[in-house]
């Protein structure tokens, strides 16, 4: 069954068509990727899915419900979490506090509870703490939970973002260029982590990535877009040998130029 189904999606800014009639789906329990050359509109697709952009047309069905034109926080509450291309951590807060942001939508204490420290509030805080520590443990950062996030190494900061997304208890995790800025070792760990999230936590994963090596290794299904349009879909082998894809990435032979 498809967890996410996108039909006929279109987006334009000031007459510029960023996404055109895009269609794809992500199966529950799978690891899927969206790739395409620079400026192809991949992050725009993510922004449409998560409610940050307002698509001009189309439908997005997530977990059986339409989420189009819903506010981002509501979409997250329905079980779709994301990471950002450029790290978007809460820089001056500790690692644990960062991760706690994910639990916000799964908890409910208000100001009165906070001031009086009611039993319910304390219990909830303990639960938040406990779950977030588990998330941090899962990505291997429990030891640094009290450090200020921006003081961590870059690769660790990436993993904080992951833990934060996991703390929202998602069904679907959208990863926007998870390997950007990582070194070789970190990339290898990343591949392991992606697989563990799917296998151990049962969370479906949909990612955008430029590092083709990584994409080819983890993805079960790859969708390729260029100029906001889908040009190919399939598994790693099919994509790597698709002439349209090669052309999009390496360019056409332009004999007339010289």
């Amino acid at each position: 069954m498809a967890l996410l189904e996108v039909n006929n999606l279109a987006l334009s800014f000031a007459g510029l068509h960023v996404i055109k009639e895009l269609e794809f789906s992500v199966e529950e329990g799978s690891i899927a990727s969206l790739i395409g050359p620079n400026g192809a509109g991949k992050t725009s697709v993510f922004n449409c899915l998560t409610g940050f952009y307002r698509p001009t047309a189309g439908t997005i069905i997530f977990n059986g419900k339409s989420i189009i034109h819903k506010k981002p926080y509501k979409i997250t509450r329905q079980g779709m979490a994301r990471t950002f291309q450029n790290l978007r951590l809460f820089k001056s807060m500790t690692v644990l506090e960062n991760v706690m942001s994910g639990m916000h939508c799964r908890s409910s204490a208000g100001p009165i509870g906070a001031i009086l420290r009611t039993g319910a509030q304390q219990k909830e805080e303990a639960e938040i703490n406990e779950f977030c520590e588990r998330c941090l443990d899962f990505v291997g950062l429990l030891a640094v939970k009290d450090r200020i996030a921006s003081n961590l190494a870059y690769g660790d900061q990436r993993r904080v973002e992951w833990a934060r997304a996991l703390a929202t208890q998602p069904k679907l995790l959208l990863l926007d260029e998870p390997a950007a800025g990582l070194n070789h070792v970190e990339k290898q760990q990343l591949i392991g982590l992606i697989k563990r999230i799917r296998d151990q936590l049962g969370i479906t994963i949909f990612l955008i990535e430029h590092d083709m090596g990584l994409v080819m290794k983890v993805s079960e299904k790859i969708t390729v877009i260029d100029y906001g349009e889908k040009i190919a879909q399939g598994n790693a082998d099919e994509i790597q040998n698709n002439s349209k894809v090669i052309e999009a990435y390496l360019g056409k032979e332009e004999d007339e130029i010289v």
Partner: protein
Amino acid sequence: MSDTLLEIENLETHYGKIHALRSISFSVREGQIVTLLGANGAGKSTTLKAISGLIRSTSGSIRYLGEDITRKPAHEIVQMGLIHVPEGRKIFKGMTITENLELGSFTLDDDAERKRRMDHVFDIFPVLHERKSRDSAFLSGGEQQMLAIGRSMMTNPKLLLLDEPSMGLAPFLVQQIMKIVLRLNKEGVTILLVEQNAKVALKLADHGYVLETGKIVIRGSARTLQQDESIVKAYLGEQ
């Protein structure tokens, strides 16, 4: 043979915690087209920004026309004829095409010369001439790229750094832009080209360098690189 115009040695830069460039060294000789290739995030744009003075490099040196320009502010480097056409064009939206071009010749005091250069730009890009008093925000992607290149020509450049001029452009436009790059080169402008479109870039270039995670991993003449299987790998990953 021609002289070395630009020489970069052991260039290192950091963005906060990210080590963006690791010991980059290469040189560009007068009259050449040199291309930097590589996947996204490999450090191509960073290299250009370091050369044009938009970002400070941590260590290493950049020599241009025999002078060390590593610590020079960007606006002074421009006056030496080294012009950077940045990624995403960065034209002045909200201003007309003519105004954009005039700003290109900001350092010039001679009005007649400005007029002459602008005519030259309009000669190369007739489409800009047609819309010269229109707000540049309403130009198409290709026209914006033309404007960005045209604007840089107003400075009468010796060395042009072009950052992904074909990005987001339809194939026939890519072709048109590349023709212009060639024409500029023939007119005597040395070009350092960062491109996504590897095949096209290598067709134009004399030399090429492939970057991966901030390092130069492959270097050679365009001809040899064209045959090199590892280029495909750099873009599409290991099979």
